[in-house]
Structure formats: structure tokens, C-alpha cells
């Protein structure tokens, strides 16, 4: 009996230890974000804070105008998610329900283009945005990100719509509903869970996007959260407590999304991976 129980518990301990190691950076950030620089340099990063000091947080917040960055990220991510869902749905309607000719090739085209690295397009985006007056404009970033993400959305949504019960569509047509009405009144309400998965994913992917806003949003006023953090870190201008305060402010939105969307996320990761 003993020989069977022991390894079982050893495995659990090992897995739990690994989980703690994975969480250690989060814990250390939390521990140090509320210290004063003086406290940090005397007691080191592992001591418990003596009190709650908001200095590091405040210094970072003011220095990068974090509130403005949050708003930018929120605005861009929401706009991209909405736009990309709309375009994906339209594409998928034609491919999955309309079964237009050559749909396999069109889908393959979307997917192949999706594997291209952004670096192979970033300089032309930069020149095109300058010519179109969209350089340093959130709209430019929104359009590019939305189009990039609708490749995955088209793929996911058309495989879902490909399995949509045909009888329901026929019935809608018999009742006199046109294509547009069939889509908005019949198909979309029935695909709500896929739409949610897409929306959440597009939102988070855009939130996390780095290179595109780094290049195309040059002014402070338009920057997003990751770019503001990444730039400051890259410049190595922060002291220890400000670094951890900035890390905490970067982590918090991600944690909020995790709590809000946990179900959708796990569902979405697996839906996306396994066709």
C-alpha cells in the first residue's frame, strides 16, 4: 500500500513546486511594487514590505501617463476585435455556408499569408501609413491588426459554419429571408459561442501586440500599454521599485482578462488548435 501512495504524493509535490516556480515572478513583482527605493536597497527583493508605498506605482503612472495608455489599448483592442469578427463572419459566410467555388484555396491563401512574419511587411506598412496619413494614428494600427487576425477568424468560423444545419437555412429562405437576414437573424444568434471565442481572442491578441504599435504609434499620446512598458525597459531608465511597479501595472489587465474570460479562453485555445 505504502509503495503506491508515496509516489503519488511525490508527484503532487513536484507538480505543486513547479506551479510555485511558475508563479514566483508574479509573487515577487507583487512583493516589491509597494516598496520604497530605499527599503528595496537595504532589505533586498525578498523581504516583506514594511508598509504600502505607492511611490513606485505613482512615479511610473505619471511618467508614462499610464491612464492614457490603458485607454489607447482598450480602444484599439476593442475596435480590432469588433472589426475582425465582422470581417471573419462575412468571409466565413461565403466560404462555409455559400461554399463559393475555390473555397479550399481561398482558405489556404488566408492561412499561408497568416504565417508570414510581420517583419516582412512592417516597412511597407510604415511607408504606406505615412502616405495614407495613417502614420502615428490608432486607425492605421486597428486596420492592420484586424486584417491580420481575421485570417484565423475566417478559418475557425468557416469550419463552424460548414457544419451549420442546412435545413435551417433552407427554411429561412423559404420564409423569404434574404442572405443578409438569414445571416443576422438566424446564423449569428446560433453561433454566439464561437463569436465570443473570436472576440476574446482578438481582443487579447491585440492587447498583447508589440511590433506594430511600436513602429506605427510613435507619439506618447497614442502608445499602448505593452509598448510603453517595453520602451522604458529597453531604455534601462528605471530603478528597481519602479520596474516592479511597472510590471505590476502591466500584469494587472492580463489578470483581469484571465478572470473575466477564463472559460472562453480554455475553450478557445482548444477549439483553435484542433479542427
Amino acid at each position: 500500500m505504502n509503495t503506491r501512495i508515496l509516489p503519488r504524493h511525490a508527484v503532487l509535490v513536484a507538480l505543486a513546486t513547479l506551479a510555485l516556480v511558475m508563479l514566483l515572478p508574479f509573487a515577487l513583482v507583487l512583493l516589491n511594487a509597494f516598496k520604497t527605493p530605499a527599503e528595496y536597497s537595504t532589505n533586498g527583493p525578498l523581504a516583506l514590505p514594511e508598509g504600502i508605498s505607492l511611490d513606485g506605482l505613482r512615479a511610473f503612472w505619471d511618467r508614462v501617463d499610464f491612464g492614457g495608455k490603458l485607454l489607447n489599448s482598450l480602444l484599439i483592442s476593442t475596435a480590432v476585435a469588433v472589426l475582425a469578427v465582422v470581417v471573419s463572419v462575412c468571409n466565413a459566410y461565403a466560404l462555409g455556408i455559400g461554399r463559393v467555388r475555390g473555397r479550399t484555396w481561398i482558405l489556404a491563401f488566408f492561412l499561408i499569408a497568416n504565417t508570414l512574419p510581420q517583419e516582412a511587411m512592417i516597412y511597407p506598412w510604415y511607408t504606406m501609413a505615412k502616405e495614407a496619413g495613417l502614420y502615428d494614428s490608432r486607425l492605421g494600427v486597428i486596420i492592420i491588426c484586424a486584417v491580420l487576425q481575421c485570417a484565423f477568424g475566417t478559418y475557425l468560423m468557416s469550419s463552424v459554419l460548414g457544419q451549420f444545419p442546412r435545413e435551417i437555412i433552407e427554411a429561412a429562405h423559404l420564409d423569404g429571408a434574404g442572405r443578409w437576414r438569414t445571416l443576422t437573424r438566424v446564423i449569428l444568434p446560433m453561433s454566439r459561442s464561437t463569436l465570443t471565442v473570436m472576440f476574446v481572442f482578438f481582443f487579447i491578441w491585440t492587447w498583447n501586440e508589440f511590433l506594430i504599435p511600436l513602429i506605427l504609434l510613435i507619439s506618447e499620446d497614442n502608445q499602448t500599454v505593452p509598448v510603453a512598458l517595453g520602451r522604458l525597459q529597453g531604455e534601462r531608465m528605471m530603478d528597481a521599485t519602479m520596474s516592479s511597479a511597472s510590471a505590476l501595472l502591466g500584469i494587472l489587465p492580463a489578470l483581469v482578462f484571465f478572470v473575466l474570460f477564463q472559460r472562453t479562453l480554455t475553450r478557445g485555445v482548444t477549439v483553435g488548435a484542433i479542427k
Partner: protein
Amino acid sequence: MAVLTRARPAAQHRTASRPHRARGYWLFLLPGLVLFTVVVIVPFLMNVGYSFTRWPGVGDPEWIGLENYRRLLKDEVFWSSFRHNAALVIAMAVIPAILGLVLSALMFDLVARHFGGRTVTVLRAAYYLPQLLPIAVAGVVWGWMLHPQFGALNSVLDAVGLGSLGQDWLGDPDFALATVMAVMVWFQLGYPIVIFMAGLERVDPALHEAAAIDGATWLQRFRHITIPQLRPEIFVVLLTCTIAALKVFGPIYVLTRGGPGNATTVPSYFSFQNFFEKASVGYGSAVATTLAVIILVIAALFLRIQDRSS
């Protein structure tokens, strides 16, 4: 979710009723195709075009044919950037996939059965959490932890009596790449775990029961049941993570900026430098185009292999 992933066989019996209506659906595809052409295809072709020129980004590009590509082949930085890329494939695809397989199987077979589903949920959430961070934020977190003077990692080592192992983790050319690799394993591990755990739900428990009755050990069942049954998931994880590793930019930008020297530079960062720091757009485009071709070839190879094995 089951509804979304299952149900291939149903597709056959309804092809009959399609014919005359198909045409009007093209309209729905139009905006997507136009946007995609303008935002992806045209820029990509422009980039290929730039790669045959010498161009500082202002004025007119000067056509120099294959000169940039010839230069690439002799450029030591370019070659080393691909070696670093290979290291990142190991850190972001191979190690997480192997570790993820073992961890998922352990959680599924042992933890779920003997300690309850809730324990599994907590563990899985802990492993998955880093995946949710913007990569730039993950970089800030680690940049701070690994800082040679005030970083937490060296303090942790001190605290457990291993202070002599302390390093300038990202600043020492001998350690920088390995450190970046370790950070990427931390970042990436949750993804295969979530995928594999979902895949394991699919495996018929009768297989394991039969094997257990025949006296198979856990390791034998892992090798002969779990791994073969999870083959589609393993494939997807390796493909997507390999592509992600080849494209990696954010972590390098935030953690090391390719340095010290060129110790951690990767093709995407190298092309970025050429575009925006060295004002050699033509050369940067050649690097980016080469990277794109390599990614496409690797993706095609993967799909080929999968096609053949299934």
C-alpha cells in the same frame, strides 16, 4: 466545444442542395479579400521588391539585384541569428511540448484521479498564467528579476546559499541566450498543457483500463497509449510553437536588444535593426524575406509529414 470540433462525417449528405444560389455569396467575401490584399499581399510583395535595392528609406531605391542576398550569405551576424532562432525553437516548441506531455499525463492520470479535478484546475491555471501576459510585460518582469545589481534572482540564489551561482544573466554573452531560452520556456509551457489536457479527455479510458489489467506500468501506458493518441495535438503544438519561435521579436527587444554584442540577436530583430536603426531598408527586407521563406518552407514540411503519417 465538442460540437465545434467533432462532426466531420455529417458534411457529405447536404452538398446536393447548393447549386444556383452560390454566386451572391461572393459579395460577402469581397471586403475581406480586398483588405487582405491591401494589408498583407501588397506589403509583402513590396518588401520582396525592396530586398533587391539599396535604400536608406528616403529618396529613390537603387536597384542592385541579388546583391543583398549575396551579402547575407557572408554575414556572420545573419547566420548566428538563425542559430539563435534554432535555440528558441528548442526553448519554445520542443521543451514545452515534452514537458507539457509529461505534466499533462501526470495531472490527468494521477492528480485528477486521486486529488480531484479542482487540484488539476489550480495547477493548470498556474502553468497557463504566463501565457496571458503581453510578451513585452513578461520581458519587463524578467528584466527586473534578472538585473545583475538589484535583481531578485540573484537574491533568491543568495538566500538559498547558492550565491556563487549569481550571474549577470542577460549581460554575459555566455549566459544571455540560455537565459532568454529559460524565460521563453516559462512563458510558453502553459499552451501545450492546455491543449494536451483537452486532448486527453478524448482518449478512451477503456484503453488505459485494459492496459492496467495487463499489468502495464504508468510509463508504458504513457508511451504506448498517451503519446500515440495525442498525436494530432502534439503536431499542432509543434507547428504553431515552431512558427512562433521563428517569428520571435518582442522578448529579444525587451530583454536584450539582441545583445550583448550579437549574442541573442534573431532574424526578426536583425531586420528591425536594419530598417529602423541602420537605415539599410534593402538589406533588412532581404533578411525579412528570407525569414518568411524559411517559415513557409518549414510549415509546408510539417504539413507534408502530417499528411504522410495520417
